[in-house]
């Protein structure tokens, strides 16, 4: 019996008069891959922003363990074990790959600023230990060749992967991925899907995923939530969602059928 890890209940979010999320409810089970899909402007990213503490919903709660994330200070959320990636990659462009990942070890380092400046005792020990940890992630994601490249100079696909690595460096229990496959070709998507599955299977990380590519979503997720105009219009396993008439009408529509026809040859 798997337990609920992240419980989103009755979330409503507005900006001024613009209501972005209406009364959203769903539960993410431990060790699952949970996809959020829906048309653009449906509020998917806003929902992710609520979970990661970037937005503060006016109503509702998001329970994670004994914490209500909507009331947890933004900087306290990552230390609880919640990491994320961004729709428009948000790396530290002036740092190299290693330092980008090391920067994510921030919350795991106990050195104070004076120790940092002296580079003595705990600071030195921690830097070396964490460096080892980070190098393992780099190896796992197969980006060793670009370890010392400044990330601002790297191509899009690699930056997406470094960003995944940075999220992993937090050692999260929940990983929030905002369109990890956007702008990739089928080949690159396969790689990314494999990494996501590896992270899920080998490290036991629970994954919440926003993605437009229905192929990816249907293949890898355990549960799917469908949003439209800020409301939840469907929920269930990929098969249930795929055949839900409401979902088809609002979102999947013809596009879904088109890809099937092409697939049939």
């Amino acid at each position: 019996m798997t337990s609920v890890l992240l419980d989103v209940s009755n979330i409503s979010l507005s900006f001024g008069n613009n209501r972005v999320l209406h009364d959203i409810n769903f539960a993410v089970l431990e060790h699952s891959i949970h996809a959020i899909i829906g048309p653009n402007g449906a509020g998917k990213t806003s929902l992710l922003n609520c979970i990661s503490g970037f937005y503060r919903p006016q109503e509702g709660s998001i329970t994670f363990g004994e914490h209500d994330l909507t009331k947890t200070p933004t900087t306290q959320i990552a230390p609880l074990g919640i990491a994320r990636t961004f729709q428009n990659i948000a790396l530290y462009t002036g740092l190299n790959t290693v330092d980008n990942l090391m920067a994510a070890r921030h919350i795991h380092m106990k050195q104070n600023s004076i120790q940092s400046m002296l580079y003595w005792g705990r600071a030195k020990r921690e830097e070396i230990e964490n460096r080892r940890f980070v190098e393992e992630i780099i190896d796992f994601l197969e980006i060793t060749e670009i370890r010392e490249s400044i990330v601002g100079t790297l191509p899009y696909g690699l930056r997406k992967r470094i960003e995944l690595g940075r999220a992993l460096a937090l050692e999260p229990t929940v990983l929030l991925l905002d369109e990890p496959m956007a702008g990739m070709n089928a080949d690159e998507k396969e790689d990314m899907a494999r990494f996501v599955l590896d992270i899920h299977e080998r490290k036991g990380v629970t994954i919440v995923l926003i993605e437009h590519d229905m192929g990816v979503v249907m293949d890898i997720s355990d549960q799917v939530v469908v949003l439209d105009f800020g409301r939840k219009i469907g929920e269930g396993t990929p098969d249930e969602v795929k055949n839900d008439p409401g979902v088809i009408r609002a979102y999947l529509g013809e596009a879904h059928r088109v890809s099937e026809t092409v697939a049939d040859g």
Partner: protein
Amino acid sequence: MNWILVPQQFMTGILNGGTLALIALGIVLIYKSSEVFNFAHGHMVMLGAFLVWFFAGGTSQEASGMPFALPFGVAVVAAITVAVLVGLAIERFTLRPMTGQPLLAIILVTLGLAQLLEGTTTLLFGTQPKGFPSPIDSSSVITIEVPPINGQSIVFLDRIILKQVLVVTFIVAIIAAVIFILFFRFTRAGLRMRATSENHELARSVGIKVPRVFGMSWAIAGIIATIGGILLAMVSGVSINLATVALVAFPAILLGGLESFGGAILGGLIVGLVAEMVKASTVIQVRNSAEIAPYVLILIVLIIRPEGLFGRKRIERV
């Protein structure tokens, strides 16, 4: 507080604020079109004042040995022409090559320009403060008698004395400000500037000649700065110090919000007001603090209400 002085200082403050508001407008204009915080604007103001002084042949006492002795109005036109050329040259030769550089580099270029303008002005016109050939006698005043209320004169007030020159500068500043706002809001050139200010590459992609827009902004800023310089000089004469006085426009625009003309005007008025109102204090240190009062004010505002009074909230996304 020395209450007797309050109404007097209030009016003087507002009137001083008019000129500040106009100077602030020039900074906001450059910022809106090209996202450059022009720290050299104060020096453009100073240069404008010197140019008018120069073309008008100084005051009657200084006139001997000056190459020009144009009537005041002509001197203003000549000064504005030079200021426009300076503005265009600044854009063309320093800021255009900097396109695409980070914020800090651009701020520094304008700081470098400020130094360059200061040095050049000293070189050309000397270090001594000058009298300004103002068309208005700075000693003439307008006296407003405050009528007694209910047959009783108010305890601390019977009249307000306003320098005529201050009233004139205020009116000129406000008229100039209104013209520029209308221009920006309702003309196509204004739309070009507004579009360019948001996204240069995008503006280029829709066929806007972006360098021309920048040039135009700098030219207009040159005009505004010169007018501001004239107004300041009419009140306090011509000297290198005008640049520092004009720097107070920065707190003013932050107070009003960096992107709003209306805000810049209101900010200018408030800063002018605050700088005069402290003079009504009974504490000597506060009374002397006119030069820093705007900065203290802005510090408080930055802590309490940072987006200023009219600044737009950023549309922030991740």
